[in-house]
């Protein structure tokens, strides 16, 4: 019989052990999947691990990884705020879209896009856009006690249809483009490249700073503390004088703001214009949910998880190009990682005991 026994004390070593175990499980599964999906599995495994050093310039590949992980980490950290307090915003994808829409709207309203304030103004508008969109499920939960899982998810679809509508309707740009899209924003409000030839740009710096600020807030302030309390015990929350409803507002506002900021940066740095939803949204908002849990809702963990998943994603698209392995392998690995990490997290708190079922022995 297998039994779980509560550990008397937990420390960094017990956590590290379970994380390593989860990594091992994920790795073993990934190898198995590549054996099935590729006719040259050894090459596939090797190239997926070492792709930055293959073919193209290394900084380009690492640039791709960093670019993707910046978006994922920022959105995931925002989501982790609510998750810490058992508030389940899974609509970051919609808040991301609204961040982009907000930023584009601000651009249209702006008199002089050449001003030095124009770029920050766009980002601010993105934050506000994401924040407002996130307020809807918060409002519904506080006033009508609706389940925020459902409302926030459904609002993703509303947001993405709205985005497409804007691109084919009121904000329709060049009719000769192969897809529905708006006119691009001016060069002056687009993020500038940090290293030429790579995907690294000033927008990523903005995301990095936002990540650091929010991480510091979570780790060192009363706000972070209140979330920790809310996570474990709502009654203690009231004892401390925190209103549970305000926690809902706050965590939706923060996660919406982070997703909105990511959306604004994405608009200014990656596309320069709004595009119909299926060609614009890259599922960052959903992947970030997985990242938040892989990182155990801790800023450092989220950063590492975002890097790991981005590395896998970029690696998967690399072997798709070089070895014709379908890049859905990345999604499989993500999901297995999620299960492995959640499963192994149990080992932090419990030890596994293998026992024979004991019966009464009479001497």
């Amino acid at each position, binding site marked *: 019989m297998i039994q779980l026994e509560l550990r*008397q*004390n937990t420390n960094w070593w017990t956590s590290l052990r379970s994380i390593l175990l989860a990594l091992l499980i994920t790795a073993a599964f990934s190898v198995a999947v590549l054996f099935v999906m590729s006719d040259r599995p050894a090459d596939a495994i090797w190239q997926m691990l070492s792709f930055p050093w293959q073919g193209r310039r290394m900084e380009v590949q690492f640039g791709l990884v960093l670019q993707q992980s910046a978006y994922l980490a920022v959105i995931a950290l925002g989501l982790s705020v609510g998750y810490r307090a058992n508030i389940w915003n899974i609509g970051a994808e919609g808040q991301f879209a609204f961040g982009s829409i907000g930023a584009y709207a601000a651009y249209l309203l702006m008199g002089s896009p050449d001003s030095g304030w124009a770029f920050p103004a766009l980002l601010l508008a993105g934050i506000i856009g994401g924040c407002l969109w996130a307020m809807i499920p918060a409002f519904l939960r506080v006033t009508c006690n609706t389940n925020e899982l459902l409302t926030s998810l459904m609002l993703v679809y509303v947001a993405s249809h709205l985005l497409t509508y804007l691109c084919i309707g009121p904000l329709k740009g060049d009719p000769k483009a192969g897809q529905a899209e708006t006119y691009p924003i001016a060069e002056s409000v687009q993020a500038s490249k940090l290293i030429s030839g790579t995907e690294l740009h000033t927008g990523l710096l903005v995301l990095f700073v936002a990540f650091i600020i929010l991480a510091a807030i979570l780790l*060192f*302030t*009363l*706000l*972070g*503390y209140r979330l*920790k*309390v809310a996570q*474990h*015990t709502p*009654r*203690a929350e*009231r*004892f*401390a*004088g*925190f*209103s549970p409803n305000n926690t809902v507002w706050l965590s939706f506002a923060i996660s919406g703001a982070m997703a909105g900021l990511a959306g604004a940066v994405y608009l200014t740095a990656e596309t320069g214009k709004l595009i119909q939803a299926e060609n614009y949204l890259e599922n960052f908002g959903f992947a970030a949910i997985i990242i938040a849990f892989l990182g155990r809702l801790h800023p450092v963990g989220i950063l590492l998880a975002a890097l790991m998943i981005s590395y896998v994603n970029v690696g998967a698209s690399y072997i798709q190009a070089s070895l014709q392995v379908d890049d859905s392998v990345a999604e499989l690995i993500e999901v297995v990682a999620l299960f492995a990490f959640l499963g192994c997290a149990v080992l932090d708190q419990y030890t596994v005991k293998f026992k024979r*079922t*004991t*019966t*009464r*022995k*009479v*001497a």
Partner: protein
Amino acid sequence: MSSQPALLQTSQISKAFGPVVANENVDFEVQPSQIHALLGENGAGKSTLMKVICGLQQPDSGTVYWKGEKCTIGSPKVARAMGIGMVHQHFALFEGLSVTENIAFSIDGAVQGKALENQIIELAERYGLMVEPKRPVFELSAGERQRIEILRALLLNPELLILDEPTSVLTPQEADQLFDTVRKLAANGHGIVFISHKLKEVKALCDFATVLRAGRVVGTFDPREQSTESIAELMLGSRDISTQRQVRHIGDRRLQVRQLSITDHDQTLQVNNMDVHAGEIFGVAGIAGNGQELLYAGLSGEQTTSDHNAIEINGTYAGTLGPNERRELGAMFVPEERLGHAAVPQLDLIDNVLLSNIANKKASNKGIVNRRYLSRKVEEITTLFGVRHAGNKTAARNLSGGNLQKFVVGREIIKQPSVLIINQPTWGVDAVSAMNIREALMSLAGHGSAIIVISQDLDELLEISDRLAVLHHGTLSEARAVHDWNVEQLGLAMTGSTDTPGNAAA
């Protein structure tokens, strides 16, 4: 010792949890027909010993003999099959199900329906455990619920029955009924282990006692032949448990409550008139479930009222204010539940000090938590109140009940509050910690604080209160000086058996 083998005997049982030795070479023996008291502070090793006997834990070394035969109790199932039954302190009953259904559950449906009902009635009659099999549990009092627990233990025909602090939730009258039942069980040959903190009960009921201290057996004797003082001394070591009643100076009014009514779900609270003065301990007696939680919530601001003038703290109306605003007026609070209300189990002691210090300007500066200040407070609290712990970063759940209670009470006392509201200050706490806490409360009152103690422990209230009111069915009676009450009157008021003053005033 009798010539026939003991019903249950443990020999040299030892069990350690990491560095903590819970049991060390414990010898323990229960004879058939014996009512055997197991005494000791919280953390003395009583629970561990019982867990070993019930098969919940395996000893590191030592042997258990059942009727003279060596045996291994691998699991609770094995223990039940052997004939060991236990009635836990906290009930595990389904509120929505009837008495019969609850019992059917625990015996895996071996007997059901009418047959089970008849069996229940027969057992109930034999042992004076009056219950109505068809009634749903949520309608029943604590005493009745306990009878269900005892009945379902008895249906498995145990030869040894363990009762873990069975009287902690009962009225004096209910406790007397329980004692009758226990005596009948013993007369029928059952061995009984009776765990309690209340020495008076033990002397009245038990014919043998084993005392544990720090995991070791420090005495076995017939409690009827020992004085309460000598038993207490054995339990506590050479510590003085008698507390001197101080003469306190009663000062100005600190808390005033007028026509406070609160409704939460189907519970209501009605406090018509309540004044508490500086230097005074105001006791609120009552049986669990009569509105204590709501009274605490109403006074602490966890539940506010729309009538702003219903509560006045230090001259400021506070009815609509939340906990932190009331703290700023000088009131501090200790809720009943240690884990999950007064403290967050998973967080360390430093974070748990912050829990009631959100409004404290020193604990955080512009929203940034000052861990150094909080850490100093942990040192202060733990030294001042003798809280044993393994460092400031220990999670609250790793502290024993008594130590954690000293911590959460100490956390408020070091703030020298002008008003302190404390719910069940010593519930489930070992005798020494309880005494420390009561002394700390009295000394705080001596320094001029106004204290409201809500407690189910009458002896405690009679010991420390200046004035006493009874909470029954959500209504607080008028307060009287303690010497104007006697235990009998209180017991009756608590069960609503008489018209207490104040009930009529509504």
